[in-house]
Protein backbone atom coordinates (compact mmCIF):
# COMPACT_ATOMS: atom_id res chain seq x y z
CA UNK A 1 0.00 0.00 0.00
CA UNK A 2 1.15 3.54 -0.70
CA UNK A 3 2.43 5.10 2.51
CA UNK A 4 0.25 8.15 1.94
CA UNK A 5 -2.84 5.92 2.15
CA UNK A 6 -4.18 4.35 5.32
CA UNK A 7 -6.82 1.63 5.41
CA UNK A 8 -8.64 0.89 8.65
CA UNK A 9 -11.91 -0.65 9.78
CA UNK A 10 -14.55 0.36 12.29
CA UNK A 11 -16.80 -2.63 12.85
CA UNK A 12 -18.03 -3.60 9.41
CA UNK A 13 -17.06 -0.23 7.92
CA UNK A 14 -13.88 0.09 5.85
CA UNK A 15 -12.21 3.48 5.92
CA UNK A 16 -9.60 4.75 3.48
CA UNK A 17 -7.74 7.87 4.60
CA UNK A 18 -4.71 9.93 3.70
CA UNK A 19 -1.69 11.47 5.35
CA UNK A 20 -1.87 15.16 6.16
CA UNK A 21 -0.89 17.30 3.20
CA UNK A 22 -1.61 14.64 0.60
CA UNK A 23 -1.71 15.63 -3.05
CA UNK A 24 -4.24 13.28 -4.60
CA UNK A 25 -2.57 13.23 -7.99
CA UNK A 26 -2.17 10.56 -10.64
CA UNK A 27 0.07 8.23 -8.66
CA UNK A 28 -1.85 8.44 -5.39
CA UNK A 29 -5.14 8.02 -7.25
CA UNK A 30 -4.03 4.60 -8.44
CA UNK A 31 -3.21 3.65 -4.85
CA UNK A 32 -6.59 4.95 -3.66
CA UNK A 33 -8.44 2.95 -6.30
CA UNK A 34 -6.53 -0.22 -5.51
CA UNK A 35 -6.94 0.11 -1.73
CA UNK A 36 -10.63 1.00 -1.90
CA UNK A 37 -11.49 -1.73 -4.38
CA UNK A 38 -9.63 -4.30 -2.30
CA UNK A 39 -11.73 -3.27 0.68
CA UNK A 40 -14.93 -3.33 -1.36
CA UNK A 41 -14.55 -6.75 -2.97
CA UNK A 42 -13.83 -8.71 0.20
CA UNK A 43 -17.40 -8.51 1.55
CA UNK A 44 -20.96 -8.43 0.31
CA UNK A 45 -22.75 -5.11 0.84
CA UNK A 46 -19.50 -3.24 1.57
CA UNK A 47 -19.61 -0.10 3.68
CA UNK A 48 -16.78 2.12 2.55
CA UNK A 49 -15.70 5.60 3.63
CA UNK A 50 -13.11 7.63 1.76
CA UNK A 51 -11.99 10.26 4.26
CA UNK A 52 -10.42 13.32 2.63
CA UNK A 53 -9.12 14.77 5.90
CA UNK A 54 -5.57 15.95 5.15
CA UNK A 55 -6.01 16.04 1.38
CA UNK A 56 -4.98 19.43 0.05
CA UNK A 57 -5.23 18.75 -3.66
CA UNK A 58 -6.91 16.49 -6.17
CA UNK A 59 -7.43 16.30 -9.91
CA UNK A 60 -10.04 14.89 -12.25
CA UNK A 61 -8.24 11.55 -12.08
CA UNK A 62 -9.48 11.24 -8.50
CA UNK A 63 -13.05 11.87 -9.59
CA UNK A 64 -12.73 9.10 -12.16
CA UNK A 65 -11.34 6.69 -9.58
CA UNK A 66 -14.14 7.50 -7.15
CA UNK A 67 -16.73 6.82 -9.84
CA UNK A 68 -15.09 3.46 -10.51
CA UNK A 69 -15.09 2.65 -6.79
CA UNK A 70 -18.73 3.72 -6.50
CA UNK A 71 -19.77 1.42 -9.35
CA UNK A 72 -18.04 -1.51 -7.68
CA UNK A 73 -19.51 -0.77 -4.24
CA UNK A 74 -23.04 -0.18 -5.50
CA UNK A 75 -22.77 -3.23 -7.72
CA UNK A 76 -22.42 -5.19 -4.49
CA UNK A 77 -25.37 -3.34 -2.92
CA UNK A 78 -22.95 -1.47 -0.68
CA UNK A 79 -22.55 2.13 0.37
CA UNK A 80 -19.77 4.65 -0.32
CA UNK A 81 -19.47 7.85 1.72
CA UNK A 82 -17.02 10.68 1.00
CA UNK A 83 -16.05 12.53 4.17
CA UNK A 84 -14.16 15.63 5.33
CA UNK A 85 -13.93 17.48 2.02
CA UNK A 86 -12.19 20.85 2.17
CA UNK A 87 -14.04 23.78 0.58
CA UNK A 88 -11.74 23.70 -2.46
CA UNK A 89 -12.28 19.99 -3.04
CA UNK A 90 -15.99 20.44 -2.42
CA UNK A 91 -16.00 23.00 -5.21
CA UNK A 92 -14.47 20.49 -7.63
CA UNK A 93 -17.40 18.11 -7.04
CA UNK A 94 -19.83 20.99 -7.57
CA UNK A 95 -18.18 22.06 -10.83
CA UNK A 96 -18.25 18.50 -12.14
CA UNK A 97 -21.94 18.20 -11.11
CA UNK A 98 -21.08 15.10 -9.11
CA UNK A 99 -22.73 16.17 -5.86
CA UNK A 100 -25.94 14.18 -6.61
CA UNK A 101 -23.89 11.14 -7.59
CA UNK A 102 -22.08 10.62 -4.27
CA UNK A 103 -23.05 10.60 -0.60
CA UNK A 104 -21.12 13.03 1.61
CA UNK A 105 -20.47 13.50 5.32
CA UNK A 106 -18.88 16.36 7.19
CA UNK A 107 -16.36 14.13 8.94
CA UNK A 108 -15.39 10.52 9.59
CA UNK A 109 -17.66 10.17 12.61
CA UNK A 110 -20.69 11.40 10.68
CA UNK A 111 -19.81 9.07 7.81
CA UNK A 112 -19.68 6.07 10.16
CA UNK A 113 -23.11 7.06 11.53
CA UNK A 114 -24.48 7.16 7.97
CA UNK A 115 -23.03 3.71 7.21
CA UNK A 116 -24.57 2.24 10.33
CA UNK A 117 -27.97 3.92 9.98
Amino acid at each position, binding site marked *: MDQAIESTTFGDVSIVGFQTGSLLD*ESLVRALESTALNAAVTVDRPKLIVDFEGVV*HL*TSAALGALLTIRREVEGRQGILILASLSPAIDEVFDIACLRPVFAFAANRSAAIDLCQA
Partner: protein
Amino acid sequence: MRSFTGSLSEVVQSTRDFVLQGDFLNGLSQELIFAIRLALEEAVTNAHRHGHGGDPDRPISIAFSRHGDDLILEVADTGDGFDPGSVPDPRSPEGIERSSGRGLLLIRAFMHHVEHLDAGRRIRMRRCLEPARSS
Protein backbone atom coordinates in the same frame (compact mmCIF):
# COMPACT_ATOMS: atom_id res chain seq x y z
CA MET B 1 10.11 27.78 -21.15
CA ARG B 2 11.27 24.32 -20.14
CA SER B 3 10.55 20.89 -21.55
CA PHE B 4 9.87 17.73 -19.58
CA THR B 5 9.84 14.04 -20.47
CA GLY B 6 9.10 10.88 -18.51
CA SER B 7 6.15 8.94 -17.21
CA LEU B 8 2.99 10.88 -16.44
CA SER B 9 3.70 10.80 -12.71
CA GLU B 10 7.27 12.01 -13.28
CA VAL B 11 6.20 14.85 -15.56
CA VAL B 12 3.41 15.92 -13.20
CA GLN B 13 5.89 16.03 -10.31
CA SER B 14 8.57 17.87 -12.32
CA THR B 15 6.24 20.48 -13.75
CA ARG B 16 4.63 21.02 -10.36
CA ASP B 17 8.04 21.67 -8.85
CA PHE B 18 9.02 23.95 -11.75
CA VAL B 19 5.95 26.18 -11.51
CA LEU B 20 4.94 26.07 -7.86
CA GLN B 21 8.37 26.63 -6.38
CA GLY B 22 8.67 29.98 -8.13
CA ASP B 23 9.08 33.02 -5.90
CA PHE B 24 6.16 34.76 -7.58
CA LEU B 25 3.76 32.45 -5.73
CA ASN B 26 4.91 33.70 -2.34
CA GLY B 27 2.04 35.17 -0.40
CA LEU B 28 -0.70 33.70 -2.57
CA SER B 29 -3.69 32.14 -0.85
CA GLN B 30 -4.11 28.37 -0.65
CA GLU B 31 -7.20 28.81 -2.84
CA LEU B 32 -5.11 30.34 -5.62
CA ILE B 33 -2.36 27.77 -5.35
CA PHE B 34 -5.00 25.01 -5.49
CA ALA B 35 -6.43 26.51 -8.71
CA ILE B 36 -3.03 26.92 -10.38
CA ARG B 37 -1.84 23.46 -9.41
CA LEU B 38 -5.07 21.85 -10.60
CA ALA B 39 -5.04 23.62 -13.98
CA LEU B 40 -1.37 22.81 -14.50
CA GLU B 41 -1.78 19.13 -13.70
CA GLU B 42 -4.90 18.72 -15.81
CA ALA B 43 -3.19 20.37 -18.79
CA VAL B 44 -0.03 18.29 -18.38
CA THR B 45 -2.08 15.11 -18.03
CA ASN B 46 -4.02 15.91 -21.21
CA ALA B 47 -0.78 16.64 -23.08
CA HIS B 48 0.85 13.42 -21.92
CA ARG B 49 -2.13 11.10 -22.22
CA HIS B 50 -3.96 12.50 -25.24
CA GLY B 51 -1.36 14.62 -27.04
CA HIS B 52 1.41 12.06 -26.79
CA GLY B 53 -0.58 8.88 -26.25
CA GLY B 54 1.40 8.26 -23.05
CA ASP B 55 4.78 8.28 -24.83
CA PRO B 56 7.31 9.20 -22.09
CA ASP B 57 9.96 10.35 -24.56
CA ARG B 58 8.00 13.16 -26.15
CA PRO B 59 8.56 16.55 -24.55
CA ILE B 60 5.92 18.63 -22.83
CA SER B 61 6.80 22.32 -22.68
CA ILE B 62 5.83 24.60 -19.81
CA ALA B 63 6.05 28.37 -19.66
CA PHE B 64 4.72 30.74 -17.05
CA SER B 65 4.99 34.42 -16.34
CA ARG B 66 3.39 37.05 -14.21
CA HIS B 67 2.02 40.23 -15.77
CA GLY B 68 0.82 42.56 -13.04
CA ASP B 69 -1.94 40.71 -11.24
CA ASP B 70 -2.18 38.00 -13.88
CA LEU B 71 -0.45 34.63 -14.09
CA ILE B 72 -0.06 33.29 -17.62
CA LEU B 73 0.58 29.55 -17.83
CA GLU B 74 1.18 27.62 -21.05
CA VAL B 75 1.44 23.88 -21.64
CA ALA B 76 2.37 22.53 -25.08
CA ASP B 77 2.73 19.07 -26.58
CA THR B 78 3.97 17.79 -29.94
CA GLY B 79 0.96 15.67 -30.79
CA ASP B 80 -1.61 15.90 -33.56
CA GLY B 81 -3.68 18.55 -31.81
CA PHE B 82 -7.41 18.41 -31.20
CA ASP B 83 -10.60 20.40 -31.57
CA PRO B 84 -11.61 21.67 -28.11
CA GLY B 85 -15.17 22.03 -29.34
CA SER B 86 -15.38 18.31 -29.93
CA VAL B 87 -14.82 17.38 -26.29
CA PRO B 88 -18.10 16.08 -24.83
CA ASP B 89 -19.56 17.82 -21.78
CA PRO B 90 -18.85 15.49 -18.83
CA ARG B 91 -21.84 16.98 -16.98
CA SER B 92 -24.29 15.63 -19.55
CA PRO B 93 -26.46 12.64 -18.61
CA GLU B 94 -24.34 10.50 -20.93
CA GLY B 95 -21.07 11.79 -19.48
CA ILE B 96 -21.73 12.06 -15.77
CA GLU B 97 -20.82 8.42 -15.02
CA ARG B 98 -17.70 8.40 -17.18
CA SER B 99 -14.40 7.97 -15.35
CA SER B 100 -12.51 10.51 -17.48
CA GLY B 101 -12.98 13.65 -19.55
CA ARG B 102 -13.27 16.31 -16.81
CA GLY B 103 -9.87 17.95 -17.14
CA LEU B 104 -10.83 20.76 -19.49
CA LEU B 105 -13.99 21.46 -17.52
CA LEU B 106 -11.94 21.99 -14.35
CA ILE B 107 -9.32 24.08 -16.14
CA ARG B 108 -12.01 26.39 -17.50
CA ALA B 109 -13.63 26.65 -14.08
CA PHE B 110 -10.48 27.46 -12.11
CA MET B 111 -8.73 29.72 -14.63
CA HIS B 112 -10.14 33.05 -15.79
CA HIS B 113 -9.28 32.77 -19.47
CA VAL B 114 -8.29 29.75 -21.56
CA GLU B 115 -7.06 29.73 -25.17
CA HIS B 116 -6.26 26.73 -27.34
CA LEU B 117 -3.47 27.54 -29.80
CA ASP B 118 -1.48 25.71 -32.48
CA ALA B 119 -4.43 23.48 -33.45
CA GLY B 120 -4.92 22.40 -29.85
CA ARG B 121 -1.30 21.49 -29.13
CA ARG B 122 -0.85 24.45 -26.79
CA ILE B 123 -3.12 25.71 -24.04
CA ARG B 124 -2.67 29.20 -22.59
CA MET B 125 -4.35 29.85 -19.26
CA ARG B 126 -4.69 33.10 -17.38
CA ARG B 127 -5.56 33.48 -13.74
CA CYS B 128 -5.91 36.78 -11.92
CA LEU B 129 -3.91 36.57 -8.70
CA GLU B 130 -5.64 39.50 -7.01
CA PRO B 131 -8.21 38.00 -4.61
CA ALA B 132 -10.54 41.00 -4.86
CA ARG B 133 -10.93 40.39 -8.57
CA SER B 134 -11.18 36.63 -8.39
CA SER B 135 -14.42 35.07 -9.60
